[in-house]
């Protein structure tokens, strides 16, 4: 039986990644990581149930994995060193949280004999370090240390066309304002994760991002706010995206090296390893 695991947040990207994986694998483990500061993990059951109903209940296994200990280690291990070297980069909570989830997923895969792991990383979310192609490549190499093959099946899908603040104001309702090229918008819509999910019958419309339904299918977390304040108000003024991407890669390369060492120790020493002790079950 071909098995794989997926980091499952319950959102549209990871749901589509799960749906695509279920077309290739006999059984899929949906791994939802929980920790202090992530609220309403039960929301993720909504799309997990839809996937189970669509592809077969015996083919989908949904598990909740607490990552408090690993997240603390990833964020605060050698903290003084990181603080002096990278300063406020240590507020990249979203990237660090995702790194903790990757470590927990790797442990799960090793313990359950699974060699394939994927997630819903998407190029449309490239301000988050964990969704940058360069950081994803580092993550892939880190997973190889645990013998796990990590892929991002929905990375090249487009994000929704109207997720911007201005779009949510529905300017098209005002008759005297131009509404843009409708044909072009229509074509772009067909390349999104939302459209594919709609085609598969897993979503009621092709763009649910930012809607009440979107909020009711994934965990709620406000820690990106502190990251956003740092990024948009403090760090970015006067800098380009390329500089930010390069700095992020430098920071996360070192974090990944630490995480990779934890994984190697886990593979070697299992119960005696630090990662094993940090892993809540």
């Amino acid at each position, binding site marked *: 039986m071909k098995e794989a695991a997926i980091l499952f947040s319950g959102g549209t990207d990871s749901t589509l990644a799960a749906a695509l994986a279920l077309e290739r694998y006999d059984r899929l483990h949906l791994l939802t990581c929980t920790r*202090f*500061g992530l609220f309403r993990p039960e929301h993720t059951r909504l799309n997990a149930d839809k996937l189970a109903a669509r592809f077969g209940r015996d083919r989908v296994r949904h598990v909740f994995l607490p990552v408090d200990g690993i*997240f*603390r280690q990833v*964020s*605060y291990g050698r903290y003084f060193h990181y*603080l002096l070297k990278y*300063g*406020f980069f*240590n*507020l990249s*909570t979203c990237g660090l949280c995702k790194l903790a989830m990757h470590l927990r997923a790797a442990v799960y895969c090793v313990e359950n004999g699974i060699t394939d792991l994927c997630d819903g990383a998407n190029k449309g979310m490239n301000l988050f370090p964990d969704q940058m192609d360069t950081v994803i490549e580092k993550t892939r190499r880190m997973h190889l240390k645990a013998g796990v093959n990590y892929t991002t099946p929905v990375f090249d899908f487009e994000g929704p066309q109207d997720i911007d*603040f201005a779009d*949510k*104001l*529905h*300017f098209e*309702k*005002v*008759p*005297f304002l131009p509404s843009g090229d409708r044909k072009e918008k229509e074509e772009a819509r067909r390349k999104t994760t939302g459209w594919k999910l709609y085609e598969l019958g897993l979503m009621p419309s092709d763009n649910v991002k930012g809607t009440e339904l979107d909020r009711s299918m994934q965990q709620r977390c*406000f*820690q*990106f*706010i*502190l990251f956003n*304040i*740092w990024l948009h*108000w*403090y760090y970015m*003024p006067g800098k380009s995206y390329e500089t930010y991407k390069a700095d992020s890669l430098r920071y996360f390369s070192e974090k990944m090296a630490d995480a990779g060492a934890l994984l190697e120790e886990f593979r070697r020493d299992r119960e005696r390893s630090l990662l094993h002790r940090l892993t809540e079950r």
Partner: protein
Amino acid sequence: MLVIFRKTLAFFICLAGVLMPWRLRCLYSELLGWITQFLYLNYVSVLNLIIRELGREARK
């Protein structure tokens, strides 16, 4: 001027955040999140109201 104000404000907000232990940082972010959400929703509601009224006027 606005950039300098934002940068200074962000510096102190981030300085507090970066010195906090992780659970406290989570709660701190949560608080910032609620404040942001309150401001954002007010902003969106007011702008939506203006757009609705503009639309109504244009249709008349």
